[in-house]
Structure formats: C-alpha cells, structure tokens
C-alpha cells in the first residue's frame, strides 16, 4: 500500500493548456504539501494545507490552484501552462514530524 500516491507520474503538455495532478495519502496525516523541484534539484514549497485549510501559499502564481476536498487528498490544478512550469512536482504529508513524499510528477511543457 503506497502511503502517498500521486498521478500521473509523467505529464507532457503544450503551452497554454490546463492540467491537474492528484495526490492522496492513506497515513491519516493532517498536513499536506506541494513542492516543486526544478532542474537544479531545489525543492521549493508551494502550498501547505492543514485539515483541508490553506496554511501556506508561497507566492505561487495564481495559475496554480490547490484543492483539498478532504484531508486525505490535495490536488493541484495549473492553468495556462508555461515553459517555466516544467519541473517535478512532489506531494507530501506529515503529522507534525517527518514528511512522506509521493513519487513525484514530472511535468514537461513543450
């Protein structure tokens, strides 16, 4: 049983399109995150949710809209994709301690 699962694993799309990445955790954690990892491997936090409520929004363009229908799910919708959005997006969850990461979604915008 995968603790934090995200889909899809790979996503190739054209500029201007809209896409979504889904994330689910079965650990019962209250906090979920989205991180972006660029080509230099920097891991930057984008959003943090606690019990379905947005806690942190790290100056992410409003083309990115997270949605948490319940505390086990945190989806990421991206509008009008740009070349600079190409990266690996990681979902993670935690319960006031270590973060458990999903396998990542490699997004390539062409």
């Amino acid at each position, binding site marked *: 049983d995968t603790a934090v699962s995200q889909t899809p694993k790979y996503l190739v799309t054209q500029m201007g399109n809209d896409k979504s990445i889904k994330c689910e955790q079965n650990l019962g954690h209250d906090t979920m995150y989205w991180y972006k990892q660029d080509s230099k491997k920097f891991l930057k*936090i984008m959003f943090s949710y606690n019990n379905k409520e947005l806690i942190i929004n790290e100056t992410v363009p409003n083309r990115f809209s997270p949605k948490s229908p319940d505390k086990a799910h945190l989806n990421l919708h991206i509008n009008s994709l740009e070349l600079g959005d190409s990266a690996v997006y*990681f979902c993670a969850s935690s319960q006031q301690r270590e973060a458990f990461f999903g396998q990542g979604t490699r997004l390539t915008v062409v």
Partner: protein
Amino acid sequence: GQQVMQIPQYQHVQEGEDFTTYCNSSTTLSNIQWYKQRPGGHPVFLIQLVKSGEVKKQKRLTFQFGEAKKNSSLHITATQTTDVGTYFCAGDGTGTASKLTFGTGTRLQVTL
C-alpha cells in the same frame, strides 16, 4: 523569508572516503530534518534533531544540530556506492511542520 543553504552543492568521493555536508539557516529553527533523495527518486526522511547541540548517529551517518539551532551537519564515514544521492536538510521554524523549508541540497557521487 527563511532561507536554508547547504554546502557544498556537489561532492565526488571515492568509496571509503568520508563526506560532510553543512546546512545553515537564516533563522532559528525549532528542529532540523535530513532527507536523502536517490537519483530519479523522491526525498526520504532520515532523521530529526530537536535539541540544541544534539548529535545522533545512524550506522555510518552522524548528524549534528548547532548550539544556536541555526546550523546542522551530516557526516558519512567510509562512503559506499549506496550513499549516492542528494542530501537535503529541512528546517522547521514553526514547530508544527506546517512549513518545512528545504536546503539547497548536496549531491554526493561515490565511485569505486
């Protein structure tokens, strides 16, 4: 905002040599965590340090948290090829894990 820097960015060692990565935060941290990311993989939690001056060991890995709780280090003794990957420290300034700020990472390459 909080910034967490790591040095070096990259290190290439021969198997059997030691390796150290250093982590520095611009602000005081409530705790520090360390993660390892294998090539093509996702970050995996290694350890958490909470107390000022704390030292913890995991087999060949030694982790330290600075007295001022603004820096940390990870030392690997006698590296092996299985140690290859990127090592990240992650600082939590809030104590609630609501915002883990990851360091810039140190990529370790080990050759025979």
